[in-house]
């Protein structure tokens, strides 16, 4: 095998790190650029070239694909990131106020048995903290999907919103406002952020729908 063929095979191996659609569009083009830029006698990709291609492949797989001009789309991404921060604040509040909540519950229910305490801890406080931690990941995942131009995060987010609304209302009906005021306040703020995010997501979806419709109607008019 010649030096050129060996070098080309090395570059082709690196280009396999890119996603299939990117390779379909750019594979032979980038290979040409890499071969044009190779040093005389070079037989394999340099380490710096491999690192650069790996970074490019990572960006092609994970980087945002929303155009900068899509301000509404980026507003949704920013709101989703703000939601992750609010959820983190909620987690901190849940963990920081756990002791106070226990004291208040103890004051309100002096006759609690050990089994009842266990039920409060495993049924209320621990699941709330775990759910908040999972929700942080969910908010960030939604933000990433939106930045990649996916259209399906909205229906998933509607389910998430309904779930947290149900959770907030069931907590209030169980009297959580009496023994965990700060937690309820943070949960309410979080619910408002969710509602705002959903409203902006819906507005963006509607405006995109009508933008898609415009060329069809103008074509039929012409």
């Amino acid at each position, binding site marked *: 095998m010649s030096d050129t063929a060996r070098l080309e095979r090395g570059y082709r191996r690196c280009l396999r790190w890119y996603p299939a659609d*990117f390779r379909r569009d*750019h594979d*032979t*083009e*980038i*290979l*040409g*650029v*890499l*071969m*044009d*830029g190779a040093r005389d006698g070079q037989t394999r990709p340099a380490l*710096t*070239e491999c690192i*650069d*291609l*790996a*970074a*490019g*492949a990572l*960006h*092609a797989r994970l*980087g945002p*694909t929303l*155009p*900068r*001009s899509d301000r509404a789309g980026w507003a949704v991404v920013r709101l989703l990131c703000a939601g992750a921060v609010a959820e983190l604040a909620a987690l901190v509040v849940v963990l920081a106020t756990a002791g106070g909540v226990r004291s208040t519950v103890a004051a309100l229910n002096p006759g609690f048995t050990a089994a009842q305490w266990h039920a409060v801890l495993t049924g209320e406080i621990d699941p709330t903290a775990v759910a908040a931690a999972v929700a942080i990941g969910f908010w960030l995942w939604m933000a990433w999907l939106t930045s990649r131009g996916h259209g399906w995060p909205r229906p998933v987010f509607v389910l998430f919103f309904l779930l947290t609304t149900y959770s907030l209302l069931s907590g209030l009906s169980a009297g959580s406002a009496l023994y965990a005021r700060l937690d309820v306040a943070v949960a309410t703020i979080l619910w408002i952020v969710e509602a705002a995010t959903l409203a902006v997501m819906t507005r963006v979806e509607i405006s995109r729908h009508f933008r898609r419709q415009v060329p069809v109607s103008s074509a039929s008019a012409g």
Partner: protein
Amino acid sequence: MTKRTMQEATFLILTALAAGSRHGYGIIRDVAAISAGRVQLRAGTLYTALDRLRLDALVTVDREEIVGGRLRRYYRLTPKGAAELAAEAARFHANAATALARLGPVASGSG
């Protein structure tokens, strides 16, 4: 809100294309020449930037050629790309002029 500053590599790629359409390796060589060898773009970085610029409609594919059995794609500035480059260049120019005026003799090498 402050408008985000264009990255130097992006600015240099657009500057290379301001002189006319270029293929990938042509852009790399031109960027190295414009920056007096200080910025050496690599293929991965170049195509990440070009993809972003195409997505933002600042550059577009001008034409394609097959040279030595390989695809050679030429890129050119769009009117929007030219306008953004002009705005960014004017901003750099204004900032540089202010900096040089304030430095005065130090900048001219007499200090």
